[in-house]
């Protein structure tokens, strides 16, 4: 049954690869077209505010189980964002972002368990290690295009998956257990105790919001414009005097950081990390999140992260075949609504505006 589910998802991925470029182009046109009084900038701002407001009030309305699920949704949303910005803003379909999510998680697990209780030290270690790793892997994978890029990035993440699975020092197939949740100090101003679910939730939300604004900020620079040019028409870019290699590589490394920082926080929730985190299933889940949310905005993958995580939890309480449901939703979205939930919301909002 899982085989069938995986089959559905893989077929969906291939289908997505074929359909995406034109659909994304349409979606982006709609989002960026100035119309009526409602400009694209204000449109994304409105949706962003709604999403943040929803995320802020959530813990006040639900119990511990859903707060913890919310944390998971935020952090997996970070992984989806890593995949989503590469596909939506640089035009690279990576099936390997989970590698950086996993590496971040394992470094965090090992260091918190054996070396230090300082969140900031571990963060620095994760950023440095993942930068180096992503620079090396990136320098290899971004030389390929399209489906080759997707497959070679998948191959790298599978290699890391197998390494984690087979290395005794990393706990093999069991993973690493008993990771202590740290207290995070903010230079004398105060501290956040991650053992408290409420505090953990708002901390995770804070991390994701910071990442979100950092990405928005980077996209609104000349560097970001070159990335959008590479996505739009990569062959033309060298004739404007840009070497696309460096722009792609920097974007790849930055996207890896997004996954790694989310991944670093992830094991602190349950106190353990397992090789499953690096599996193809996590990859397909993050891709489904990015697509269901929508790839034409930075917000989309995060919204997708929330929706898919909660839906998956609901469906898996009803049936064991939740992966099949996930696969079906994925395929339905790719075929009927490639600009995702954000696209649907944008259409709703602009339609109301026109009336």
């Amino acid at each position, binding site marked *: 049954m899982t085989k069938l589910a995986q089959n559905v998802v893989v077929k969906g991925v291939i289908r997505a690869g074929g359909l995406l470029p034109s659909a994304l182009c349409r979606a982006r046109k709609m989002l960026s077209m100035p119309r009526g009084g409602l400009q694209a900038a204000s449109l994304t701002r409105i949706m962003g505010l709604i999403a943040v407001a929803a995320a802020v009030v959530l813990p006040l309305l639900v119990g511990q189980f859903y707060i913890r699920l919310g944390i998971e949704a935020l952090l997996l949303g970070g992984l989806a964002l890593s995949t989503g910005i590469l596909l939506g803003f640089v035009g690279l379909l990576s099936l390997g972002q989970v590698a950086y999510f996993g590496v971040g998680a394992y470094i965090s697990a090992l260091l918190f368990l054996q070396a230090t209780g300082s969140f900031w030290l571990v963060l620095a270690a994760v950023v440095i290690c993942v930068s180096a790793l992503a620079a090396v892997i990136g320098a290899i994978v971004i030389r390929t295009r399209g489906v080759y890029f997707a497959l070679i990035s998948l191959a790298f993440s599978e290699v890391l998956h197998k390494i984690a699975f087979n290395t005794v020092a990393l706990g093999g197939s069991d993973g690493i257990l008993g990771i202590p949740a740290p207290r995070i100090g903010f230079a004398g101003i105060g501290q956040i105790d991650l053992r408290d679910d409420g505090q953990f939730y708002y901390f995770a939300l804070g991390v994701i919001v910071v990442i979100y604004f950092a990405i928005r900020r980077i996209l609104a620079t*000349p560097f970001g*414009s070159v990335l*959008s*040019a590479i996505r739009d028409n990569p062959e033309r870019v060298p004739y404007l*005097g840009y070497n696309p290699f460096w722009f792609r590589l920097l974007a790849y490394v930055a996207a890896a950081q997004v996954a790694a920082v989310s991944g670093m926080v992830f094991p602190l929730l349950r106190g353990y990390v397992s090789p499953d985190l690096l599996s193809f299933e996590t990859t397909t889940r993050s891709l489904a999140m990015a697509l269901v949310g929508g790839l034409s905005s930075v917000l989309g993958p995060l919204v997708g992260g929330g929706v898919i995580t909660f839906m998956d939890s609901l469906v898996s309480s009803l049936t064991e075949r939740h992966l099949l449901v996930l696969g079906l939703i994925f395929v339905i979205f790719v075929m009927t609504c490639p600009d995702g939930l954000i696209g649907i919301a944008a259409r709703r909002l602009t339609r109301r505006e026109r009336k």
Partner: protein
Amino acid sequence: MFRVVALSKSFGALQAVQDLYLDVPANSVTSIIGPNGAGKSTVFNLISGALTPDSGAIMFQDLDITGYPPYVINRLGVARSFQITNIFFGLTVLENLRLATQSSEPRRQFLRPLRRFRRPQQRASQLVAEFGLADRAEEIAGNLSHGDQRRLEIAICMASAPILLLLDEPTQGMSPTETMETDELIKSLKRQVAILLIEHDIDLVMGVSDNVIVMHQGRKLAEGPPDEIRRNATVQDAYLGRADADT
């Protein structure tokens, strides 16, 4: 200013360009004409760095740029347009131009916010006006008419302030009026840059060119001022005599 010496390129058994010599002086228009498959576009691909020649040299301002990658050649001052419209269809007209104008800015400033990046922005707005696209500045380039897209493509080339401009069939698919406008545009651009032009519209070529080169099967068949080329018997036989519509 710009010279091509003994340039050759073959694809398998096909000799696309064979022992070609070119000389483009500053502030002049040199045109390359010839039937389809004569090797004209291959010449452009060699000069702009898309292809590496088998032999020969490409000299730009006393610098041997043979085999340089396209982005280096562009930054040195050679801009090219494409036979099939090649712009950023998903971006706005202004964004298309700003991408080209910001290219000459130092890369270490590339992470500053766009709104503080004034010079490229101003230059782009200026170009929009110069090329008569001002009222379409915020339009997505893919929504422009074919003629406007062709014009935008030339504007993008001019945005990088080139010294040599390579125009690959700029009037391709244009209406007679648009072709006439392009004719005037090329004449006015001549004051700013040296132009190497590939074009099938013979009237336009004869009108704007200082020098015409006729290519046939990868070789240079004839070279000279327009009048001379018009009278040349070999050329008439190979090319001008026949109606050779481009596809």
